[in-house]
């Protein structure tokens, strides 16, 4: 609970109002020893600046890349990362869990 999600969402609103493209990524499901619970979120702007976390550092890089596409297309998408998934292994969710992350454009 140390993260203050309200600050993350406030940043999302502020960035959007300042004319930036913004995406919000939210953990919607977890299995096994996922590092961050459902509801954890990461806000990303079109400069690649991000706040918050969905995994404590393991997959944020990949989520930011996907978020850039979502800002462009405006279409939400669901990402899944887990040990069984080679891509996820490559980006480093080595802690044994699986997470699904919903990425949506803000505004």
């Amino acid at each position, binding site marked *: *609970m140390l993260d203050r999600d*309200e600050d993350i*969402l406030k940043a999302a*609103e502020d960035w959007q109002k300042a004319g930036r493209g913004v995406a919000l990524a*939210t953990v919607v*499901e977890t299995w096994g020893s996922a590092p961050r619970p*459902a509801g954890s979120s990461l806000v990303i702007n079109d400069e690649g600046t991000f706040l918050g976390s969905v995994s404590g550092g393991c997959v944020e890089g990949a989520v930011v890349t996907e978020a850039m596409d979502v800002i462009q297309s405006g279409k939400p998408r669901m990402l899944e990362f887990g040990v069984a998934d080679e891509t996820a292994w490559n980006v480093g969710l080595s802690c044994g869990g699986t997470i699904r992350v*919903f990425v949506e454009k803000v505004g």
Partner: protein
Amino acid sequence: MKLEILHELNAERAGRRPVILVTDTESGEQRLVKAKDFARDPLRTELEKQLRMGRSASVEAGGKKLFLNVYAPTAKLVIVGAVHISQALAPLARSLGYDVTVVDPRTAFASPERFPDIPLIAEWPDTALPPLNVDAYTAFVAVTHDPKIDDPALLHAFERNCFYIGALGSRKTHAKRGDRLRAQGAKESDIARIHAPIGLPIGAVSPSEIAVAIMAEITAALRLPPKEKEEAA
């Protein structure tokens, strides 16, 4: 997420009103449900359960995959008494995510040297407490051992429906406190809400251990459903 929804979500959070954002994860459709509207919502059972647990979750309803994102206000802890226990309790509570405030009119106790980085109010409870907006997401502890300070503070906590109220003192001290509060108009049900002796019985001796016992009891009050809460007590 539509900007209107984000704006409303931030406004509700700023006002410390619990809300749940319901997202259809296939279509991306979203709606924000305020806690006061849960009772007439088709998802009320799920909404109520997730809010109580303070936990977001995916559910299936009406053939749709929905994600319920719970936004409960940040829990506050108001500590009345800038005593030795509070010096351990304040940083521990903060590490658990609480917004902590310490109140004590005795300036020798309520000094920034003793409470670095913790908001301190060196005023009597009658002055200090009303601006703090003590609410149902506030845990309230009275640990001065001085009835002149603890009693009015506890009366304030009863009024504001704090989710946890604890007070330092043995059973004997607490019985006397009950008599005094009754004489000041407190209801029997209010007095019964006070956790005293304060903290889970873990044999705590040092101020830090007592702080752990108190925070464990507050965590149980915040997270356990009512039945299990009774069993833990």
